[in-house]
């Protein structure tokens, strides 16, 4: 048979198949939970649990297992309610999470855990929801209608392997000769919120302020000049291998290195405490709206918040839980100690800091 005819026939068949498939697309039925703004409004927690179990799945994104104890939280949630949790793109950043909401449609995430800058910029993607423990969250830590609400936070710290470098008692120690080729950030300053806050902490320790990140940039420039700077980001592997024995990281993340390096210590400079909270949000186009809301209820319950605490992160309801004595005392005692009033960057300050970095960082450490 003529090969050309065969190919043409095949092409027509494929085209027909695609047309038929395109015509027959099934729409999803909307659930009442898609627009529910609280559990009480649609039948209470029991109705929510039933609806979530009927959905059977939850899509989360960018939740590494050892970030604020999310591994344990996901397992506990999944076991308690018999809902399968799909954890996608664990190394993704906040922007990846909102990009996924925008692009993946019915396969996208139901809930996101994002940095404040990304949360504030993308409220048009979120559905408002108020968890049952809403009033325990301070007003400054939530959006009034419930488009986003903070979940846990921590303070910027310097983690170091005490077996490889001497004890750190001041930030200027890191410029010394014993730290040659050993100091690293945990991300790219222009890409990662964590790296930007690290530089801000250094700026505060060098006489800068929340409005002025330039002292931090200068300090890193000096760090590179004396040869102590490692240009690539530190990870679990590079810490264990010994390539980045000094790492700027959130204190709750730094604690994870102890399982690879028993001599790991965490230190925060006195009077230069930079803190940051992350925020939860529910996607407006969540494929599993009831499961999404149940997840939020779980995270803000005492059980969920104590799990964060066990991961060395400071849960947003900590004050209320300490008063009500429902906080896990052992975990609270294990939190790294900080001296001084923590500084939380406002949106304007974060934007100004990033703008300064965009203009000057590459030249400073290039």
């Amino acid at each position, binding site marked *: 048979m003529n090969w050309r005819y065969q190919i043409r026939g095949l092409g027509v068949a494929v085209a027909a198949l695609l047309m038929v498939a395109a015509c027959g697309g099934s729409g999803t039925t909307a659930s009442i939970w898609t627009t529910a703004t609280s559990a009480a409004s649609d039948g209470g927690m029991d109705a929510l649990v039933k609806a979530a179990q009927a959905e059977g799945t939850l899509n989360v994104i960018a939740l590494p297992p050892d970030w604020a104890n999310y591994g344990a939280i996901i397992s506990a949630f999944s076991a308690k309610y018999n809902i399968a949790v799909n954890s996608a793109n664990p190394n993704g950043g906040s922007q990846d999470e909102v990009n996924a909401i925008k692009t993946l449609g019915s396969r996208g995430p139901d809930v996101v855990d994002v940095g404040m800058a990304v949360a504030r910029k993308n409220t048009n993607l979120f559905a408002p929801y108020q968890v049952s423990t809403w009033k325990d969250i301070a007003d400054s830590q939530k959006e009034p209608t419930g488009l986003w609400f903070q979940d846990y936070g921590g303070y910027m710290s310097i983690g170091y392997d005490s077996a490889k470098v001497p004890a750190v008692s001041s930030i200027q120690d890191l410029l010394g000769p014993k730290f040659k080729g050993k100091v690293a950030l945990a991300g790219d300053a222009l890409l990662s919120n964590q790296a930007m806050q690290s530089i801000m902490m250094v700026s505060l320790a060098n006489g800068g302020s929340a409005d002025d990140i330039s002292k931090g940039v200068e300090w890193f420039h000096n760090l590179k000049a004396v040869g102590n700077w*490692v240009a690539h980001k530190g990870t679990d592997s590079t810490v264990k291998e010994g390539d980045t024995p000094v790492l700027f990281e959130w204190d709750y993340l730094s604690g994870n290195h102890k399982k690879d390096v028993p001599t790991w210590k965490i230190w925060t400079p006195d009077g230069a405490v930079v803190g940051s909270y992350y925020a939860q949000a529910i996607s407006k186009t969540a494929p599993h709206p009831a499961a999404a809301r149940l997840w939020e209820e779980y995270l803000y319950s005492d059980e969920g918040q104590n799990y964060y605490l066990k991961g060395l992160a400071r849960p947003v309801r900590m004050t209320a839980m300490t008063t009500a004595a429902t906080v896990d005392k052992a975990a609270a005692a294990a939190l790294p100690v900080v001296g001084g009033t923590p500084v939380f960057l406002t949106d304007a300050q974060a934007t100004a800091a990033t703008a300064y970095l965009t203009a000057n960082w590459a030249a400073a450490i290039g």
Partner: protein
Amino acid sequence: MTVTGSPVSRTARRPLLGGRRLPLHWIGALPFLAYATLFLLLPTGIVVVGAFLGDNGVTLSNVTGLNQQNIGNSFISSLALSAVSAVVGAALGALFAYAVATGNPRGLLRRIVSSACGVLAQFGGVTLAFAFIATIGGAGFLTLWLQAHGIDIYAKRVWLYEIPGLVLVYTYFQIPLMVLVFLPALDGIRPQWREATESLGGSTWHYWRYVAGPLLLPAFLGATLLLFANALSAYATAAALISQGNPIVPIAIANLLTSETGFAQPGLAKALALSMIVIVSVVMFLYALLQQRTARWLR
């Protein structure tokens, strides 16, 4: 079957529909073109169109935004890195391929090398970067061993985490890729060529310079072009080794697409991708010119 009464043509086509000649040759290429349109040209088009869209509709601000100092530097670094790693990878890979081609074509060594090259050509990203960090990084075992013998390779600066280091790491996957795409061409070397050269009194140098070299040149240039494009768009390995600043274009694109500090500029990222397409188009055009001139005497 029947042939029409028209004069002999080089391509004897069967007449359809009562003897009318329709340009049916193009149908042969249709399946591939249709597939490429749907899964390649369409997505590329979406990206290219996105480069001209801003918050308020069509705009040229993304393209003009490319005219910045640090982006210009990223381009220069990217092009230098890609060109050097392509040439080094092509040269070393061709030698390696020749060593493989002169062995038993069905032997175990050839199979092992081909399979290993297949795996290593796609080996990259964070793991490859870590492999090199563990070998010659600041605390790598080779670095420490050399230091114990008095040689400090990082005396002046830690070059592994800069462009020279990237060139070294890139050759790790460029060489295997070269071996795999160039080996079929080397398999086509006929022993008769060597015999003919020798019977005419030529030496090894004459053989390579005037006979085998020019015959292999088109395939060699094509493979080098592939290596160049491969290095140009490689992202994950460089991001794991140099994660500060915008040293090369793919990292700049990633920073613009996924920045968590609220500074994501997808339009500019797409404009950068568009410029990469333009650059490779220019390089392909030069390559086509070069092919034409060097392969003029080939059929």
